[in-house]
């Protein structure tokens, strides 16, 4: 049962990415081109998503279980540390170079885009590399 809801939520999330324009790197770069010809569309993606998400997270804030009575896995980290800042910085540079973040890159790979697959392969290597660095730290 859970596997079905997870599948459907993944599907819905992907449909949202496709409809919103997030899966088109040229459009993402247009949004990041704040000092050039700026396409504000993706600010509306964020507003739409946060506008809905806000209520869901407010609803679980004082709960100890999810609505089905299962476990609630909320992040426990609170600190704004070096890792958060450096990680965000490296991610942002990569995002600005290609216009892909993880979700949209996976969706475009599934759509059969070879260039997206190249990006995803490198992204997976980057994630594995993180696991290696993390185990040594």
């Amino acid at each position, binding site marked *: 049962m859970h596997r079905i*809801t*997870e599948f*459907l939520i*993944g*599907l819905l*999330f*992907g449909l*949202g*990415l*496709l*409809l*919103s324009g997030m*899966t*088109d*790197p*040229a459009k993402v770069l247009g949004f*990041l*081109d*704040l000092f050039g010809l700026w396409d*504000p*569309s*993706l600010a*509306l993606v964020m*507003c*739409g*998503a946060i*506008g809905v*998400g*806000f209520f*869901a*997270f407010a609803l*679980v804030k004082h709960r100890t279980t999810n609505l089905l009575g299962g476990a*609630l896995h909320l*992040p426990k980290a*609170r*600190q704004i540390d070096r*890792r*958060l*800042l450096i*990680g*965000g910085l*490296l991610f942002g*540079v990569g*995002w*600005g170079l290609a216009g*892909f*973040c*993880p979700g949209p890159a*996976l*969706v*475009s790979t599934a*759509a*059969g885009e070879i*260039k997206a697959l190249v*990006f995803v392969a*490198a992204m997976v*290597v980057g*994630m594995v590399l*993180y*696991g290696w660095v993390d185990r040594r730290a």
Partner: protein
Amino acid sequence: MTIDWTNFTPWTSLAGGILIGIAAALFILLNGRVLGVSGILGGLLPPKAGDAGWRIAFLLGLFCAPLVFRFLAPASFVHAPRIDASLGLLIAAGLLVGFGTRYGSGCTSGHGVCGISRLSPRSIVATLVFMGAGIATVFAVRQLF
């Protein structure tokens, strides 16, 4: 700054954002998890026993999205992604995104959508940092070089 009115798509972007928000809402309400793609994928590298099924189910759903979208959406909504970066740049960018999202514990979905939705100071800072870095990178690539 000049606004690019010709490429501005307020309605489809807002509607797509609402779908993304509904997906994130259902994930925390029904599955009790934060919808963060880099974390969901990264948690499979390597997979851990008892913690892989939900990740794979979510990713399979994500992978079916283009096919279902082509079937559901009017033809004028279906666009091929415009990927202008060279292969070398895609590899460099992929490495940075993969390492950076794991090192910083999240990406656009986990920090940007879910983290800001739950008003997490960590996620608000992370989102400002990666958006700022993305804007600075595009500025450098398009205006300085």
